[in-house]
């Protein structure tokens, strides 16, 4: 209990640092670019337009309002991808600093996931624009989206911690993970309706693809205007906490050895 208190206190002590690091990430990302933060919105918008042109023909009958369907999935996937890839490099990337000053190492990982989340929230602007443009209905359930974001955040933190510590010891995890991400993109119903996967694969994806839980919940709230089913809702929370637990545990276990490898 004492240790827990201590941990909470250090986190509190460094909360301003997390804020500052997030601020730096966002600031530097768009410094010197003409449109600045607008890119957070514009980027998904442009990708959406391209993909809509291609896929909406393909799934014309299965999906009504493809742009919104696609964006609800893509936003979640982008959050996962951006947060975990930058989290993975968070410890190794700050090696110069970590070798010279004592800073709790998880701060950097946390900051990366947080800035990805902030970025994601900005990009929701794109979705609103698309919904207005395509005349999609707005449901009150959409206001509940922070519930899904919270789950995603915990999940990404967990995965980020796990990848960050692994990357210290094995740098090739970066290459492996980028392949995993690609597979993950296609194994999640983002651009296609899940029914297209066939029976077996549908069961596998529905059961074992964590991202499916979040995409499905998010879609329920925004696209279908209904409250998510209890299986994916509670499953989502369970997976989030489980992943966070594994991530924190693996990070804790090896964090004292980082300094020898970075």
């Amino acid at each position, binding site marked *: 209990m004492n240790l827990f208190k201590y941990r909470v206190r250090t986190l509190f002590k*460094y909360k301003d640092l997390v804020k500052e690091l997030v601020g730096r990430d966002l600031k530097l990302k768009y410094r010197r670019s003409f449109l600045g933060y607008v890119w957070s919105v514009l980027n998904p918008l442009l990708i959406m337009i391209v993909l809509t042109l291609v896929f909406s023909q393909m799934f014309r009958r299965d999906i009504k309002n493809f742009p919104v369907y696609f964006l609800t999935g893509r936003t979640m996937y982008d959050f996962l991808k951006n947060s975990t890839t930058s989290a993975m490099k968070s410890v190794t990337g700050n090696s110069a600093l970590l070798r010279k000053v004592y800073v709790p190492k998880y701060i950097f990982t946390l900051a990366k996931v947080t800035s990805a989340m902030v970025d994601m929230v900005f990009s929701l602007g794109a979705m609103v624009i698309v919904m207005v443009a395509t005349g999609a209905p707005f449901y009150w359930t959409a206001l509940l989206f922070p519930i899904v974001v919270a789950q995603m955040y915990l999940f990404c933190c967990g995965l980020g911690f796990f990848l960050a510590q692994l990357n210290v*010891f*094995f740098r090739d*995890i970066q290459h492996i993970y980028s392949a995993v991400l690609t597979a993950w993109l296609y194994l999640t119903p983002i651009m296609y309706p899940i029914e297209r996967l066939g029976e077996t694969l549908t069961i596998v994806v529905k059961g074992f693809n964590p991202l499916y839980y979040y995409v499905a919940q998010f879609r329920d709230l925004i696209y279908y205007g209904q409250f998510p089913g209890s299986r994916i809702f509670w499953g989502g929370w369970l997976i989030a906490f489980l992943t966070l637990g594994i991530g924190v545990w693996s990070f804790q276990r090896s964090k004292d050895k980082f300094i020898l490898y970075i």
Partner: protein
Amino acid sequence: MENYVVDVKDLTIRFNLSNERVDNLKEYAIKLAKRELMFQEFLALKDVSLKVKKGEAWGLVGTNGSGKSTLLKTISGILKPYRGTVKTKGKIAPLIELGAGFDGNLTARENIFLNGMVLGHSRSFMEEHFDEIVEFANLKRFLDSPIKNFSSGMKARLGFSVATMVDPDILIVDEVLEVGDYQFRRKCNERMRQMLSGGTTLLFVSHNIENVKRLCDHALWLDKGVVRMAGPAEEVCDAYKQEQEQAIRERKEKRRAKLRAEGKKYDYLIVGAGLYGSVFARELTRSGKRCLVIDKREHIGGNVYTEDQDGIQVHKYGAHIFHTSNPQVWKYVNKLTEFNGYINAPVAVYKDELYNLPFNMNTFYEMWGLKTPKEVKERIAAQIADLSIETPRNLEEQALSLVGRDVYEKLVKGYTEKQWGRDCKDLPPFLIRRLPLRFTFDNNYFNDRYQGIPVGGYTKLVEKLLDNVDVMTGMDFFEYRKENAHMYDRVIYTGMIDEYFDYCLGHLEYRSLRFVTERLEEENYQGNAVINYTQREIPYTRVIEHKHFAPEEERENPKPFTVVSREYPREWEPGREPYYPVNDEKNNRLYEQYRALAEKEKNVRFGGRLGSYRYYDMDKVIEAALKDSDEELGRR
């Protein structure tokens, strides 16, 4: 129970020194399969204990790799103990590297906040202290420019300000103060002392034993990860220094033994690998004599030595510009190495004014706006006439009667006073016989026909001179002579003549200099190789920016950094590096007496700047060496 701020108990730190670092999965799997994943462990610290009370200042001494930095890093929490415990109380400010965690893309303002928070402060706390930090760092004007444009000195200043402005309980300093310019170092030392008297505990690592003695009351001596000694700073430092010197002696002994074992015998022993000794050695060797050149410094070249610092040739003992009107000498050196076409055109800074040197029409235009030689001559004559000095009683009057008030006050007075360390009024008039004035627009400092600097530095030239000669650096003549007197027949001695005779008639006097050299992360610091500072309040006389001596190199390989040296005059005392002989009457008389002794030394010839106690330009020293070697070989 005593109250310790830092309590280190039986600390052991282990590093994994496996020959190759295994950081990818394939290798890991292969090594695992072959059972090669052995850990070659290395204990950086072994059972180290250290107890520090509040307000104490501890210095850590030891050779490279003795574990000093490891200990500091463990205390500041960066490394974790393998065995043992480390307990600390209070806020720690680690100055292991100044500005660690600066982000080059952010502005100074943003970096101050970021850096403060990395050190664990809250935003409101930083806001409170922001002004204080900026003030100490003295960077107000640059607050909003990205820090990547800062010089290393500016970054260090900022880092130090952030780290120390927060009144830490424990300050950990790891050699960071060895960078930065002199003024900044002084400011840092002052601040550290101020903090110490305010109850801050200090842990300090430095290779400079004197610094440790000055700042610390206690010291810990680490040797290969083990505590050799801990206690009062004075005692520990002295013991450490003694052992260091012992180690150096042993190294030299080994070298000597090796040479003895080889059993070579030389015709000549040449003492001093400077220009005189090297030219002499070349001439003797070319005539079939076997020579050994020794030098007590660790390098050849004497004072013309240039050191390669990442492609910049640094004139370690002051600016050397080769100039001569003697075609033979010019031909001689050009056969050895290529010279560039450098022409020395120094600039003088007086307050916020800038003047070309030597005193020429450009200078006078800058000073008075006068454009023709006639106007200038009239102006100077009028200024001299105003003073109506008949027989100058001191250097000031002498100079005034030569160049008039304006030139004297702005360009001569402060500079001369700095050089001699006393007022111009207290200096004898004969020090300045003439102050040449040039009534043409010509900034070339020298009047000689040929001028230049060897491409690639003087060391290259000297290396060429010593091509086929045995050389031993780091070897003192008097040490060498003790056991190797049978190794040579004759000696060419270019060291201090009074030292040769063990100062039996007293010390000859010299003027000395001190150079403070630093590397700056900017491409061009002052735009000229030599800038003189003629104000007395500025403690240095000249700033040399070495890359400008080699414009051809810079054109070919532009460098984003530069190396500058500040030249501080200082009183000479026995033991200090002698630069310029003081050829006044008293010293010249003493030299003549030594000269008489030298005549009686049958097998020794004295020569060079120190051996013949006179100031030599480089061309003159080569001339002298050529002449003397001819004489030595009976060619004349």
